[in-house]
């Protein structure tokens, strides 16, 4: 905008720098809430987290302990369990969600009758509040009470004790994630509808099958969108917290009342995710220095994926304005 003004006036250099300075100041004014927020809620706490990672702190006494917290991490079995579980979710849940979301989106774009109704139905579960959806799934998949047992039994398949069996609990969470795939579906539908129609017409003339059209035309064209969704999916999964917490809490029947202790991860640590363990250490056991070690590890891993994402954005933001 400032350059547009410049162009019109076409004044000499000193004037131009003053114009530019005014434009910078104006931007600063508009951005000021975010700049303050960035400092207070991001930059300061990040530096502070590094500082606390070398301290023992329980909100009462602060004691420098050097690398003790970091050494403890290497021996902390629960932390490694949570890393394994989080990795499982990244490797299994994220790809399944992307593939399923893409499949559903492809199906809806191909429907002639009732596409709008189907789109609404498929999208609806992704709006259900996480806690409510998780509660529903724990009930539905509960072998004693839920209908899934009854339905599978009728077909002759024995139903596992989903959220009560360490071998199946993460699959239960995966089913929940696939159920709420609607947001991905909408993103993929938008991308699929943007693929130029002529490409398909030309391919059909050449006798390409539907599968060939999908792999040779659709996938290459929508690849950036799929990649973007996969990477954001990984980043979101690194934060996976609510569903695991609620499922474990409800399935274990643990109470919140004072005096009783609930340790996330039921059954047998199989649903313990990394952010859950960070939360537990920092805000339930008040080992805040150690929680900062876990926070920095989470920061480092998330940052790697964020950088992958930013690289995709760089070319993208240079195009306009």
């Amino acid at each position, binding site marked *: 905008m400032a350059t547009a003004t410049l162009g019109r006036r076409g004044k000499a250099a000193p004037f131009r720098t003053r114009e530019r300075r005014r434009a910078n100041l104006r931007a600063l004014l508009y951005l000021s809430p975010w700049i303050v927020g960035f400092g207070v809620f991001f930059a300061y706490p990040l530096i502070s987290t590094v500082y606390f990672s070398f301290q023992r702190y329980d909100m009462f006494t602060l004691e420098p302990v050097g690398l003790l917290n970091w050494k403890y991490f290497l021996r902390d079995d629960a932390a490694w369990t949570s890393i394994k579980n989080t990795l499982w979710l990244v490797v299994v849940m994220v790809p399944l969600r992307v593939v399923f979301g893409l499949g559903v989106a492809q199906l809806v774009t191909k429907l002639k009758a009732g596409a709008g109704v189907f789109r609404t139905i498929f999208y609806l579960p992704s709006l259900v509040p996480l806690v409510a959806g998780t509660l529903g799934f724990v009930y539905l998949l509960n072998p004693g009470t839920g209908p899934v047992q009854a339905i599978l039994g009728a077909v002759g398949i024995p139903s596992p004790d989903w959220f009560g069996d360490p071998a199946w609990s993460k699959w239960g969470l995966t089913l929940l994630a696939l159920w709420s795939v609607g947001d991905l579906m909408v993103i993929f539908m938008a991308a699929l509808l943007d693929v130029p129609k002529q490409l398909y017409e030309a391919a059909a003339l050449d006798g390409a099958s539907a599968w060939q059209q999908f792999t040779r035309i659709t996938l290459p064209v929508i690849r950036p969108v799929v990649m973007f969704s996969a990477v954001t999916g990984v980043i979101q999964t690194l934060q996976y917290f609510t569903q695991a917490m609620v499922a474990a809490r409800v399935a274990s029947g643990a109470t919140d009342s*004072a005096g009783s202790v609930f340790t996330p991860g039921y059954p047998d640590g199989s649903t313990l995710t990394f952010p859950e363990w960070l939360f537990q250490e920092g805000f339930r056991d008040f080992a805040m220095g150690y929680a900062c070690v876990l926070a920095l590890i989470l920061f480092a891993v998330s940052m790697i994926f964020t950088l992958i994402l930013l690289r995709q954005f760089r070319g993208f933001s240079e195009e306009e*304005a």
Partner: protein
Amino acid sequence: MTATLAPETIARRPAASTRSPRGRALLYWIAKHAIAVALSIMFLGPLVFIILTAFMSNRQALTSQLWPQTWNWSNFADIFEKAPLLTWISNTVMYSVLATAFMLVSSIPVAYALAKFRFRGRKLAFLLVITTMMLPPQVVAVPIYLVWARFHLTGTLWPLIIPMLLGDAFSIFLLRQFLVTIPREYSDAARVDGCGEFRTLIRVILPMARPAIAAVGLFQFFFCWNDYYGPLLYAGTDQSHWTLSLGLAAFKSQHSTQWNLTMAATILAMAPVIVVFFFAQKVFIEGVKLTGVK
């Protein structure tokens, strides 16, 4: 999962078995819609079972029967006696409304500047917005918690509301993505008419950005309505500060194993979201599209 490959596989199979192209198209049509119906049952099934269970008696809810023997409407009255639901609802509404209002006031100017101003560090600012949007909130949770504790605000929901006055990275990002698409000519025309930058934003850009603002506002509102991590961290053990999500997660364990009442409370938490969605479906879908990058 198998359904993802099905449309293409099925599309080829009839090609071998039927001769006329019209018969093939018909089979293809039937196959696609059959899969869609099957998927619909899978997507709607859990919701239907939650609703059915909410009407059952407590004893029946512990069996694997699907249909309520008697429709116990009183379950929905009972849950209000079992738990301070009204308090939780009003806390949730306060959190959601204030956070959304604060977010809009602070984030719109930021998004506008990122989308339309040229200034030094513009690209860096945008990259930092994306970075803060992507990084898990747990990364910086400890020091922020300690700051709120120093102000004696832990044990309330204010630590979740006040920061919204300083903008929300995800909302800034989405609004920016929309504002970038508004052609420059509109704001240029306003300037020729003698509008200042701020009046251009209020009079010209905001009315045009109404769908995006509505979408971002709804997303924020629902994020707060559904939020579990934030209230769990800050609301503390005093139930009078709890939100609906927090109360709901604890509901079942506090009332032995009354699945019917738990499901009734679940419906209470879902209903507003679903009702609003049906009134503002288009806004939602357009908003979700903004989150995918093109």
